């Protein structure tokens, strides 16, 4: 087979594959919000409420407790 044809097919295949990955990611984001696993929008607060004294949106300790 001609190398150019292989390149062309591989290129098209790659684009289609990556498009799937991208849409997969969008679906993943919305799904995990719908299932209540995560609330992405609350992370926006990290920029607004960023005093050293203000409570973290998700403290590190909580994480370690969960994994224990």
């Amino acid at each position, binding site marked *: 087979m001609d190398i150019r044809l292989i390149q062309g097919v591989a290129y098209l295949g790659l684009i289609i594959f990556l498009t799937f990955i991208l849409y997969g*990611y969008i679906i993943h984001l919305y799904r995990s919000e719908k299932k209540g696993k995560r609330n992405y*929008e609350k*992370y926006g607060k990290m*920029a*607004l409420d960023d005093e*050293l004294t203000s409570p973290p949106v998700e*403290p590190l300790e909580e994480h370690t407790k969960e994994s224990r």
Partner: protein
Amino acid sequence: MQNPAIEYDYTVAKWFSYLAILFGIIGMGIGVWIAFELAFPELNYVAGQYSLFSRLRPIHTNTVAFGFTLSGIFATWYYVGQRVLKVSMAESKFLMAVGKLHFWLYFIGALLAVGSLLLRYTTSKEYAQFEWPFDIVVVLIWVLWGISIFGLIGIRREKTLYISLWYYIATFLGVAMLYLFNNMEVPTYLITGMGDPFHSVSMYAGTNDAMVQWWYGHNAVAFVFTVPIIAMIYYYLPKESGQPVYSYKLSLLSFWGLMFVYLWAGGHHLIYSTVPDWMQTMGSVFSVILILPSWGSALNMLLTMKGEWGQLKENPLIKFMVLASTFYMLSTLEGPIQSIKSVNALAHFTDWIPGHVHDGTLGWVGFMIIAAIMHMAPRFYKREIYSKKLLEMQFWLQTTGIVLYFSSMWIAGITQGMMWRAVDQYGNLAYSFIDTVTVLHPYYTLRGIGGLFYFIGLFMWAYNFYKTMTASKAIEKEPQFASPMAA
């Protein structure tokens, strides 16, 4: 949280802010000068070889990109990093020392590197002119920055990394990879024992060299002029306006989109060159796709202001940032248009390219750094911004400057491109090169004046910052959102 006595430590952020102002003035001062040299060639000779356009142009580009912009990036990192991770640099002596070392190595390295360009040491690769000893210094500086980033992340209180940090990390990784690969070079003296110890030759040759160079060059735009600036706007615009990011999910999606697409688009710098045709096409296609993640971020920023547009009238910092994202949209629409093969045939080598460059750099990068530093000033010194009026004047003067810059370069570039390709009925070229020069002269002058406006604005900025630091009214408490300003 645990220890109320600890506060955020802005020492390193302050130092880098001073450098951003200093390098902004030096770099853009040289820029204005060489703009006038193009309009009035006698200016080339005022200081012998040292004032020649060819000597000064790389100094301009390197000082604005790696002096002004990088200082702005580091200043904001040392500020934003602490705040969104909710940890102070004062909590770690080690990180504090690394930050300070990072600053001093960067400052001294930058001065030496600029000096080397003035003395004609150059690899002749655009945006990668520094010779090999300076490349080694750059690597050290970068490693220190990396230690600072990951060190701070290591002692954080906030579990999740805010979107700005993703962009700072991407800047760190992206530049590290690009810089290393593009600057692979052989120091000739070490191999042959002859010639100048500073001299080196690239490890790549011919078309390969061109491909690596523009993979680097284009992504220097990505990872110095785009990605870290997005990091800034995702923090400073929400903070200054008191509005959370319009859609955090969109910010994640645009991040991955940008990361993936940018790296493939460099081919658009080499259209109709000797690189394989499919690669040119790929560069062109990916450039057009690049509109999507770019506008994703920009629209996310504009939508963050939804329902709060009144602030645009009241607050000059919001003006700077909203115009910055608007200019970002402009250059990321213009770039893909220029990447289309038939358009590039006209645009390449013409003044339309610097026109495009400066929409991005002056409008997007410059405005964002100016706004970020003025947002930090009242927090650095616990004083209100010295003069709102001066900031407003600066905004309008600089905006006028940018408009003069890009409109003159659009007209000049398209005129130039059309004249180069014009033929008479027998297929002979209709114009000689000097004909184009004559026609372009007024536009070059206008561009110089536009640049001068922007440059004057920098002094207003520096003065306002200095007065904020020394003479402005004290405030008791760090402001939460909008930065306080005296009329």
